[in-house]
């Protein structure tokens, strides 16, 4: 009974707020799947924008990540979607652009702040139109427990041999699970496994574009070799890793029970909050000392404008602001691990995040191999890569067989590979 008046009050204030907003200000609604970021948008990003542009009100309305695409598509078809739309990279957003739901933003102020690679996630195949402002990328690597490394007495590995030597030492010591990863949810094996260590073998963009052009095949050595390394990982994962889920792995690592966590930089803020030991990060190990290193610096979040929006002008203002360094600074520091893609200078305060972003200086950046163009057909290469990575880790399939299976699936629909 006691909450009734509160509910009533909430209802009244919502109504008042809504009517007040429609009376004078342009009201922008943002569709997003980042419900984890709700407080940061509400407390930091939106107030900063509203202070700079009085007269425009912004509301952040996220939905659950797994449902986002379906929810957004239904809302767009029904005409009830928000003015600004957070864009998934590549085909999901390209389909929205082709269907006329997203506006071409190529001429937006501030679009020049982004490199071609940054824009690739939200451009048409020929690069002529860009329909979302690139917001953030995530970088892959390994996060490790510094205390565990000191206790066992292993050094941070730089090459593949050192990496496995470290894993062996941790396993022999026995007080830590060498690697916190499971295969139950499947995607970690592909995303934090295959596409994490792979760029060092297929030489980043060089191999990725060659695969798209049809000059390399998934049965070629650079594409099978990462599976060979993955096949060795299974031995270092915890008991029952077959049924270990993604949250299980996160918890095992942050509870200090595991030494190495194959990671994406998006983990940083969560891990900072959970773990009470010091963490470090190392980039995917190279084959021989001194080799050029390649990292997966994957375009992950963009933001575009609903073509049916009634507040086009206000939406463009907001998007230009997103392309500015003010937004980049707030976003990068509030969400360490999501790195701005703009060339505008940004300073990071989080040491772990700084470590990840520092790799951009030393290494060549690329994006995940399966995301652009190659996952357009049936069978879906990304989903198959999940499946193959898991099968290889569990030893159900040889690396060569996995490569051959993926290649035959890709060749079945993708012209350049036929």
């Amino acid at each position, binding site marked *: 009974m006691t909450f009734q008046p509160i509910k009533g009050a909430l209802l009244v204030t919502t109504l008042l707020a809504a009517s007040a907003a429609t009376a004078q200000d342009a009201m922008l609604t943002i569709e997003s799947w980042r419900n984890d970021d709700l407080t940061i948008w509400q407390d930091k990003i939106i107030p900063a924008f509203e202070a700079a542009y009085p007269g425009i009100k912004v509301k952040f309305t996220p939905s659950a990540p797994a449902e986002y695409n379906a929810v957004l598509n239904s809302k767009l078809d029904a005409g009830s979607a928000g003015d600004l739309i957070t864009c998934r990279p590549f085909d999901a957003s390209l389909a929205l652009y082709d269907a*006329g739901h997203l506006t071409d933003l190529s001429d937006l102020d501030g679009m020049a702040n982004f490199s071609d690679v940054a824009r690739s996630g939200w451009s048409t195949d020929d690069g002529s139109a860009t329909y979302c402002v690139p917001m953030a990328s995530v970088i892959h690597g390994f996060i490790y427990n510094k205390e565990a490394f000191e206790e066992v007495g292993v050094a941070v590995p730089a090459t593949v041999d050192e990496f496995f030597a470290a894993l062996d030492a941790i396993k022999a010591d026995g007080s830590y699970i060498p690697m916190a990863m499971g295969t*139950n949810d499947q995607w970690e094996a592909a995303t934090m496994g295959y596409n994490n260590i792979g760029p060092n073998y297929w030489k980043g963009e060089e191999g990725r574009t060659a695969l798209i052009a049809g000059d390399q095949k998934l049965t070629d050595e650079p594409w099978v070799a990462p599976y060979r390394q993955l096949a060795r990982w299974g031995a270092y994962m915890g008991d*029952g890793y*077959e049924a270990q889920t993604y949250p*299980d792995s996160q918890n*095992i690592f942050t509870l200090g029970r595991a030494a190495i966590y194959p990671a994406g930089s998006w983990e940083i803020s969560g891990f900072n909050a959970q773990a009470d030991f010091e963490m470090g990060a190392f980039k995917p190990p190279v084959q021989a000392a001194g080799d050029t290193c390649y990292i997966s610096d994957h375009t992950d979040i963009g933001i575009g404008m609903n073509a049916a929006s009634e507040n086009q002008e206000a939406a463009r203002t907001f998007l230009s602001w997103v392309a500015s360094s003010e937004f980049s600074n707030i976003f990068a520091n509030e969400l360490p691990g999501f790195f701005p893609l703009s060339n505008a200078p940004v300073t990071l305060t989080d040491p772990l995040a700084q470590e990840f972003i520092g790799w951009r200086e030393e290494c060549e950046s690329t994006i995940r191999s399966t995301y652009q163009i190659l*996952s357009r057909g049936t069978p879906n290469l990304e989903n198959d890569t999940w499946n193959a990575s898991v099968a290889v880790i569990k030893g159900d399939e040889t690396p060569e067989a996995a490569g051959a299976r993926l290649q035959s699936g890709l060749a079945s629909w993708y012209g350049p590979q036929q």
Partner: protein
Amino acid sequence: MSTPPPKPKTRWHIAVFLAPAVLVYTAVMIYPLFNTLRLSFYAEVDQERIFIGLDNFRTLFGDALWSEQFWNALANNTWFFVIHMLVQNPIGIALAAILSSPRLRFSALYRSAIFVPTILSFVIVGFAWKLILSPIWGIAPGMLDAIGLKFLYAPWLGKEEYALTTLALVSVWQFVGIPMMLIYAALLSIPDEILEAGECDGITGLSAFWKIKLPLILPSIGIISILTFVGNFNAFDLIYAAQGALAGPDFSTDILGTFMYRTFFGFQLQLGDPHMGSAIASAMFVIILIGVCIYLFGFQRRLRNYQF
């Protein structure tokens, strides 16, 4: 000269009383069903929906990639159903027989306790069992260890050979209350005179169950079987909650519902294809229709209903 028979009065009240149910049912069941069937004859090419006849079905059954997934899902679904028939329904009947015994104390308590999981959400059941069986935090390894059977433990949900059976048993755990309740009601409706007459002829205890009660509850068992069949071939939630849309490991828990969901709504980088999804939904509809028809014409008519 004979007067013409009086014109029969139009009985409006029949239409009026039927209307609400007919309208609601048409709007939420019949129209979507036929629209789904219609959708399966179309495909989207260059933002336009075009009629392609049976091409979607040709792809589904003819294309190796699709048909392999379809038959895998159908086989898994059949196994899911077989487990329910072999485990859920016999246990349900046994529980009902025990509960209906007049000598059992606290039977109301047991009845409620066994029925409670049925009203839980799939998400809760899926999540709770995932935790119970988890190799890391779960109580299953610890409990087996306590009775010296630790070697029997395996990360069941992560093993291709066990995952589907495990999930089927979880579903049995959740739904065993339904056959129990239906059979319990049927058992209670058997008049005492029949049982007493049997007793006079020396039929008591277990043989009374096999020779008198079981034949009398056969119609209920038939109904339960068909409910189980329809429920299992429409199942989706538990698998989705426990294993996700990819129904891992390696599609070993993929059933028609998850296959349809993945195709219809898309998954990760795979974009949704409502037309192909509708084709799968139509195939599911036909499978269920065939199953129900076999039951109706093959069994239902041979079951004798006894009137008391």
